[in-house]
């Protein structure tokens, strides 16, 4: 199979799975199976590309020219290969989970849900493999628009206003800051292609680089840095599979991925280190990490708590990008994988608890640990990974980030990362502690939904297993970030 064909196959498979889901909309089992099949196909493609990138193969395909030397083109970067692997592999599990959740919770409009879910994955993969900044922007917008129906899925007043907030923040920031920033880069350099080492150096006025970085980080609203984070907690009205795959993996990771890509392949870490234009962003990211951790503690709703935890964890990646040293960038890229695995586990568990026991609040979890042991087991694994305890995969990325901040002599930042881990322990493990120590007052009626239980167990265990195979990913991560 030729390399360009692989790209087309990977990008188009989710669209076909959306199409087939629509065609088979009257047969529920058949309809839902296309998500799993599509997940398997894209996963195999992503894996092949991932290995290809390790062997220095080139994956590129150009369709047509949009305007002056800016093509509609896909080209897989090392970062992109990581992101696509994460998104596609978790899509398989999320599809299985979706079946259990949507039927268990008795949601309506399941066909529409499955279709837009697949389209969102399509957009995420296209973002991962986009060859220049404009193509990335196009699919960034498609991702926003395709997740809007998922956020507003319940179609009541609450979800409608959440959907509006979601759309207005994400589209608004992208049109006000991100697109003008892209135009600016194009006007100064005449190109938008991703290149190792960046395209801005010697081309872009260094004194305005801070402004450009600001436009990018606030324009890429999906990265959810404060104060552009409000859409993420609002989006939690969506059914849990959306929160799990999209708002812990695909959408938010697309945001930080876009920012990382801009830093690594457009701005160039070297240029950034010379000018120190992103040092202010280090402090904003630190602020976001601390502030959202503290807000997370106050939240009793489990999904809201996880949402604020996500905001905090996303800023780890922004922090790594802003530090721009090789270790920090390594940590940031690796954190895309580790946080995705950990957070999808937690969201899966939150959804599973809701479907089986109809509990949404942390304080109501009393004694549930004994009744839902598998779910709580998986949750604990995921939480420990995010906290960064060895031997869980999350400890690697945190290690690299701390090393990176020491490398740049930001000792305070290293301390903040440590404190934030302590806060993580508190707010992520509190549900477990409540679940196992206190006894429940009333009787809780449990409904069985086994399809929602096994996916988190698998992802939770992989958090543990991949700790020992971290080099497998790190090869790709460090292969490209050459400074």
């Amino acid at each position, binding site marked *: 199979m030729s390399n360009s064909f692989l790209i087309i196959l990977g990008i188009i498979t989710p669209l076909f799975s959306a199409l087939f889901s629509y065609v088979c909309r009257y047969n529920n089992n058949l309809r839902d199976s296309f998500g799993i099949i599509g997940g398997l196909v894209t996963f195999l493609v992503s894996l092949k590309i991932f290995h290809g990138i390790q062997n220095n193969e080139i994956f590129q395909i150009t369709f047509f020219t949009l305007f002056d030397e800016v093509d509609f083109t896909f080209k897989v970067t090392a970062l992109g290969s990581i992101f696509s692997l994460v998104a596609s592999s978790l899509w398989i599990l999320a599809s299985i989970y979706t079946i259990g959740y949507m039927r268990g919770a008795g949601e309506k409009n399941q066909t529409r849900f499955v279709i837009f879910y697949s389209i969102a994955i399509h957009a995420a993969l296209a973002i991962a493999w986009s060859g220049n900044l404009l193509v990335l922007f196009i699919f960034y917008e498609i991702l926003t628009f395709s997740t809007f129906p998922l956020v507003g899925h319940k*179609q009541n007043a609450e979800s409608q206003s959440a959907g509006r907030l979601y759309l207005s923040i994400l589209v608004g920031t992208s*049109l006000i800051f991100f697109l003008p920033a892209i135009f600016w880069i194009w006007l100064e350099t005449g190109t938008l292609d991703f290149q190792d080492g960046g395209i801005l150096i010697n081309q872009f006025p260094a004194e305005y680089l801070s402004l450009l970085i600001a436009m990018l980080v606030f324009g890429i609203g999906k990265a959810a840095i404060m104060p552009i984070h409000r859409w993420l907690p609002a989006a939690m009205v969506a059914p849990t599979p959306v929160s799990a795959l999209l708002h812990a993996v695909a959408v938010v990771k697309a945001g930080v991925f876009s920012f990382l890509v801009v830093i690594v392949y457009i701005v160039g870490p070297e240029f950034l280190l010379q000018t120190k234009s992103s040092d202010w962003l280090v402090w904003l990211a630190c602020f976001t990490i601390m502030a959202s951790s503290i807000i997370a503690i106050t939240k009793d709703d489990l999904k809201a708590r996880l949402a604020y935890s996500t905001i905090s964890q996303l800023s780890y990646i922004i922090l790594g990008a802003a530090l721009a040293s090789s270790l920090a960038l390594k940590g940031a890229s690796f954190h895309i994988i580790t946080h995705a695995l950990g957070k999808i586990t937690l969201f899966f568990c939150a959804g599973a608890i809701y479907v089986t026991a109809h509990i949404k609040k942390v304080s109501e979890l009393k004694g549930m640990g004994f009744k839902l042991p598998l779910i709580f087991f998986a949750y604990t694994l995921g939480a420990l990974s995010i906290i960064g305890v060895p031997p869980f995969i999350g400890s690697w990325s945190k290690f690299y980030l701390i090393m990176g901040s020491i490398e740049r002599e930001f000792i305070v930042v290293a301390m903040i990362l440590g404190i934030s881990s302590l806060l993580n322990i508190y707010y992520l493990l509190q549900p477990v502690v409540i679940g196992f120590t206190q006894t429940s007052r009333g009787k809780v009626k449990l409904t069985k939904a086994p399809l929602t239980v096994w996916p988190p167990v698998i992802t939770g265990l992989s958090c543990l297993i991949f700790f020992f195979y971290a080099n497998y990913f790190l090869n790709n991560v460090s292969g490209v970030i050459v400074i």
Partner: protein
Amino acid sequence: MFNIFLDDAAALVVVLPLLISAIIAFIPSKIWPWIISLVTLVLHLVLSLHLLKEISISGLIIYEFGNWEPPWGISFKIDGVNIGLQLLFSIFVLISTFYSRKIFLSEIDSRDSGKAYSLWLLAIGSLNGIILTNDIFNLFVFLEISALASISLIALGAGQNRKALLAAFNYLIIGAIGATFYVIGVGFAYAMTGTLNMNDLVIQLAQYSDGQLAIFAGMSFMLIGLMVKAAIFPVHIWLPPAYSYAPSAVSTLLAALATKTILYFFVRLLYEVFIIYPSYLSLFLDFVLYPLSLLAIFIGTLIAIYQDDIKKLLAFSSIAQIGYITLAFSLKDHSGITSGFIHIFNHALIKGGLFMAVGYFAILQKDRVTLTSLKGFGYKYPITSFALLICGLSLIGLPLTNGFISKLYLFQALYTNQMYFSIALVAISSALAVAYFWKIVEQMWFSEIKFKSEKEDAYIYLPIWIITVSVIVFGIYSSTIIEFSNLSADYLISGYQN
């Protein structure tokens, strides 16, 4: 035999619709006026294509009526500046005429069909005259014919809503004031120079190299008159009611082409004639047109957000979009004029498509289209709704649509002129455009009410989709429009340098 026709192509594109219009007014049939109009406009397109061929060979056609030489006789001029617009005009009127039949049948008394198409062709012929004429007084004549034809067409909407009469009357009065201003200006110019021909006017005006108060007064009168006609903020007030109460087919024609042709003449007057007084020109552009454009962009968008009536919403969005065009034209350089022309083309397509789709909804539900009445239409009429969605995304300016190309070049032009404040404002207003457009989408697809899909009329959705596909095609293969606009700017700027 056919060659005789083609030799006079420049005159015939205007004269043919005017002649046929006189004939079909008396045909008491429902369908024949439409067929005759359609045939006429196919011929019109053939003539326009022939003109394009001629231009690509010779670069300039001056057509002298009755062989009277220019300073005395009336002449038409076709060159790189207007050939692109002429083609767009020809193609768009053909499509919208095809679209108009079912709309007219359900919105106006069928006995009036002949009169409606007579006025329709009258408007088309006179608007085309505005594109081609090289004579400032002749322009006034065409302005008046087109205004009267449009006003009568708007008044035909009275069968649906009596407010159409008021809108038409408003347009009549305000339009007449605009035309009067313009003709007073022409009077001044004629008194000073003794000529009405635009090329000659440039030569004659050059003798007053320091400028004279009378000439500046005349120029100001002409420009203000044209601003009223082109609905440039704040003299736009006739436009929203006129567009929104006119029969839907008429709104389509007017929104897509009427103001565009006048804007085209406006910019030609600025950069071909008034350019010989650079200080006056830059005074007007920097202190009148530029701030007014920014206000138009911002206020037009803001008002559009608070509209409940969809046609009104689109009309106010037109005010903002005209603001983008005049903003580009106020930049005084090649990149600005190019981007202005690009947006004239692109916006004509986008707004035409939007008005067509909304017009179809209006006759489907036999009522005015408001936000609440659109509930569930995405499921009820999926084909038309999807076209509306694409045109709307293009209005916002997302990539892969032609609206994006407009925005790209506008940004580029503003950037080369270092107008960072305007860049910020344009970026913000395009984000605000999401607000008013998404309200529509939300009602159409994401409200509680669900419908089974109903049959849609291919005669109506076909032209809508032709426009919609062109919106995407010109977003991806943008070079055609960019080349035509570049050509227009080249011609205008070369006049600027001589």
